[in-house]
């Protein structure tokens, strides 16, 4: 028995799986569960499709928990599904969004790593794949995407936290996600990924200081989204391109999705700014999710209107 799921607490993988089943049973007309693949340790990778109508319409893909120890990220994905289903028919904006678009939500991207962070090592970041000729375990899934994959220095050592893997898309989790996004590319208009911590809203690029062609548009969305976020608790987020706002990266999901053709891609670095770091107390989950919801709803509204 997985125990009781709570939106105010961190939930282990067993509880999250049971929660996905519960959401589908509770709102069958709005939520469906799709298994997009499995992990090295044979855990299922589930996406929840949230939206009111079937058929060809716009969609936003969101993922949480690429990095195992960033626990507030999966908490947000669960919160989003809960709020979406709860406020449909009550909240005007959410009703419109769900009537006219779908959300594909991957509540935990790095399932094996997440389980490991619960059971063995709270500070675990990578996935749990074995590496040839090394006793060090795991690949950083956010360095494993096929976008300027080999350009960053010091990411070819399996013992480092930012190890990029032996090849682009070498990891089962990465391949499952990229295959799903490629096969739904016609409908996916935005990609949003959730990390922690440092309170930022990022857009491409990370692998080059060059700005993407629609950077003015992305900056405008970033500015308004962070303003919306701050209205609830005055939490200050900064926004900007990855390379100059946080630090240069290669092989990241955000840049990959952008170069694939999804021209609105964002990464949230959720709370906090370092007081707790990866150990954000559960009492901060709800406020973090509430304020983030404001930014995500703004982005979704923008996508609906402008893409």
């Amino acid at each position, binding site marked *: 028995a997985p125990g009781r799921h709570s939106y105010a607490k961190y939930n282990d993988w067993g509880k999250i799986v049971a929660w996905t089943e519960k959401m589908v049973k509770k709102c069958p007309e709005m939520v469906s569960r799709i298994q997009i693949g499995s992990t090295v340790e044979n855990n299922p990778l589930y996406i929840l499709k949230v939206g009111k109508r079937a058929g060809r319409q716009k969609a936003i893909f969101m993922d949480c928990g690429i990095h195992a120890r960033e626990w507030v990220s999966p908490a947000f994905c669960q919160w989003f599904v809960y709020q979406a289903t709860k406020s449909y028919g009550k909240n005007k904006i959410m009703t419109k969004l769900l009537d006219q678009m779908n959300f594909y939500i991957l509540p935990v991207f790095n399932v094996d790593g997440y389980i490991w962070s619960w059971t063995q090592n709270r500070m675990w970041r990578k996935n749990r794949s074995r590496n040839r000729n090394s006793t060090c375990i795991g690949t950083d899934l956010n360095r494993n995407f096929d976008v300027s994959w080999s350009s960053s220095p010091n990411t070819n050592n399996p013992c480092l936290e*930012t190890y990029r893997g032996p090849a682009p898309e070498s990891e089962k989790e990465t391949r499952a996600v990229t295959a799903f996004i490629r096969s739904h590319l016609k409908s996916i208009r935005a990609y949003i990924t959730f990390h922690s911590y440092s309170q930022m809203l990022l857009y491409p690029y990370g692998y080059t200081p060059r700005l993407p062609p629609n950077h003015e548009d992305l900056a405008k969305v970033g500015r308004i989204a962070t303003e919306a976020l701050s209205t609830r608790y005055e939490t200050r987020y900064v926004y900007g391109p990855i390379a100059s706002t946080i630090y240069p990266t290669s092989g990241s999901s955000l840049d990959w999705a952008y170069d694939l053709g999804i021209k609105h891609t964002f990464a949230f670095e959720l709370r906090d700014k370092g007081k707790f770091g990866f150990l954000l107390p*559960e009492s901060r989950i709800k406020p973090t999710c509430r304020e983030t919801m404001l930014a995500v709803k703004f982005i979704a509204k923008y996508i609906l209107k402008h893409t």
Partner: protein
Amino acid sequence: LAPVRFDREKVFRVRPQDDKQANIVKDLAKSNELDFWYPDATHHVATNMTVDFRASEKESQSIQSALEQSNVHFEILIHDLQEEVEKQFDVEDD
């Protein structure tokens, strides 16, 4: 396997003021097993960047001494990581 514990492990926050100080942090990473929280790797460490890293109890003292000797300003964000791991579960069950 018993879960990893983090008793008396520390999280340092350093803000190198110049290249020399940034290199001191990078050198510390070569001689100690540091877990970089922000940025996520040593090679990103740069002047005027806020750098957060975790260090074992054993290495914390020598790291602190090295930073003090080099006049690198630092603060200790977390004094006992295991305590914080336990304190994160601060919401009672429904």
